[in-house]
């Protein structure tokens, strides 16, 4: 990953921005918000010029998403919520509804993973290598495969269980 002179960071941006948005999206579940946070992370990287920009970005992004979630939770307690998510309300077709409920099922399934398993899975899915995941999570490199195998299994099981549960509930 090397140093991060601006031109290097531009390259990291090109290769990593979407992955970072993807990673953040699974934490904040709002595409616009995820993009804003990703932009913010890159803006901070320009100031801090971290040694290993990619890993640094994901760490900063994870922290920002956590702060964001806390703030959101705090605000929900005593703030006026505008409305349902616009995304949700604008969808009309059966297909769109199906896409939305699939997304919701995956979200619920992800919530059932332990925080560490979920983090490793999301980092892998965002394109980080085992080395990078190990550096970011503090896990031994040798433990990443095991963690991923468990996370993937639980995700699939939780998703299928959720789907089966819906069918039972509907009769």
């Amino acid at each position, binding site marked *: 990953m090397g140093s991060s002179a*601006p031109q290097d*960071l*531009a390259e990291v941006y*090109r290769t990593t*921005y*979407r992955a970072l*948005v*993807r990673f953040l*999206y*699974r934490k904040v579940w709002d*595409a616009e918000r*995820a*993009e*804003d946070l990703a*932009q*913010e992370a*890159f*803006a901070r990287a*320009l*100031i801090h010029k971290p040694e290993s920009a990619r890993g640094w970005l994901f760490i900063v992004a994870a922290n920002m998403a956590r702060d964001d979630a806390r703030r959101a939770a705090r605000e*929900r*307690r005593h703030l*006026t*919520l*505008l*409305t*349902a998510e*616009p*995304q949700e*309300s*604008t969808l009309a077709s059966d297909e769109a*509804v199906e896409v*939305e*409920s*699939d997304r*919701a*099922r*995956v*979200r619920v*399934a992800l919530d059932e993973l332990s925080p560490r398993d979920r983090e490793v*899975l*999301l980092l*892998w*899915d965002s394109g980080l290598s*085992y080395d990078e995941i190990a550096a970011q999570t503090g896990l031994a490199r*040798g*433990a*990443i*495969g*095991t*963690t*991923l*195998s*468990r996370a*993937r299994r639980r*995700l*699939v099981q939780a*998703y299928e269980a959720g789907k089966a*549960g*819906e069918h039972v509930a509907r009769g």
Partner: protein
Amino acid sequence: MSHVDDGTLHAYLDGELSPAEVQGVEAHLAQCPACRGRLDEERALITRAGELLALAAPPDRELPPFRAGDMKPLTRLWWKVRLPLAWAATVAIALGIGTYLGRGVEQVPQAPTASDTQPAELQALQAPISADTVQRESRAWLRGAARTPPAAPAAPAPAARGETQMAVIPRDTALSAATLARAPAPQAAFGMVDGALVEKASPISLDSARALLGADPLAVPGAPIRTMYRAREIGYSAVVIVEQALDSSTVIEVVNGRRSPLALDAVVVAGAAAPVAQADSVRERAPLGRARIADSLAAAPAAKAAARLERYETQNRGLRRLGDLEVRVSGPLPSDSLQKLLRVVQPVKP
């Protein structure tokens, strides 16, 4: 040799084993049908998990341009410049530009701006607009203006900017900052729109605007679109502000609001409700949710919000309903000019 454990199989399939480790695994697989079977299962599992995660991916959007040198400084500039600019624009407009709509009455001699730089599209404002014109022109702005506002193609000839340049140039800079660097959102701008406080968030693309509103955003035909913003406003589930340049120094904002589908202007939720119903189909959930929310609503805030909205509508005659959208136009122009503009707004087509 002992069997290969799950973790090693996953690392092997992920391509994350060292060459020596790969050799070891393959040697074992060659002589162990059980592990070969497990290898297939784990491969299927990895594929399935990947598919599920792909279901929960954000919409794939165009990569916003990255200009390392610009990112931070321009972001600051944007916030610094914007507020004084609003005043500068107001003054400039009060002095001269406001005359352009009412210029049939009186030709202002020191304002070559009005006649020389009057972009052809503006005539569309005065002349009745044929649907065809609108379509074609909308496409024209979108191709250039919406994506790269600073290079607004239909922008009036820069020659006659004259005295108004002072107000124009910083504004351009600010816009390019916002669009190119997509100002990190946490500091939101507050724009005064007809006396109501609207929180402006980050600039968005036309596609996002359309997705947010569930319809084509409305804009004044013939005037280049500088930027679109997402905004938040009570009573609306989505608000998109379309910033358009009428001429080199007059920028108006067309505020598109999508009424909250619940038709309740404010929903007060006591306690942090988890999104329990997520798993249900959205359609099944909707009516149920509505009833529940209605039950749990404190009457006062809802009434207050409704009153607020009503006041809003009466205060601002400049509110027009078109389909699901409510639109108003604001800008440094006399209110009757704004009214005229409001009457001609048209959907921005792709």
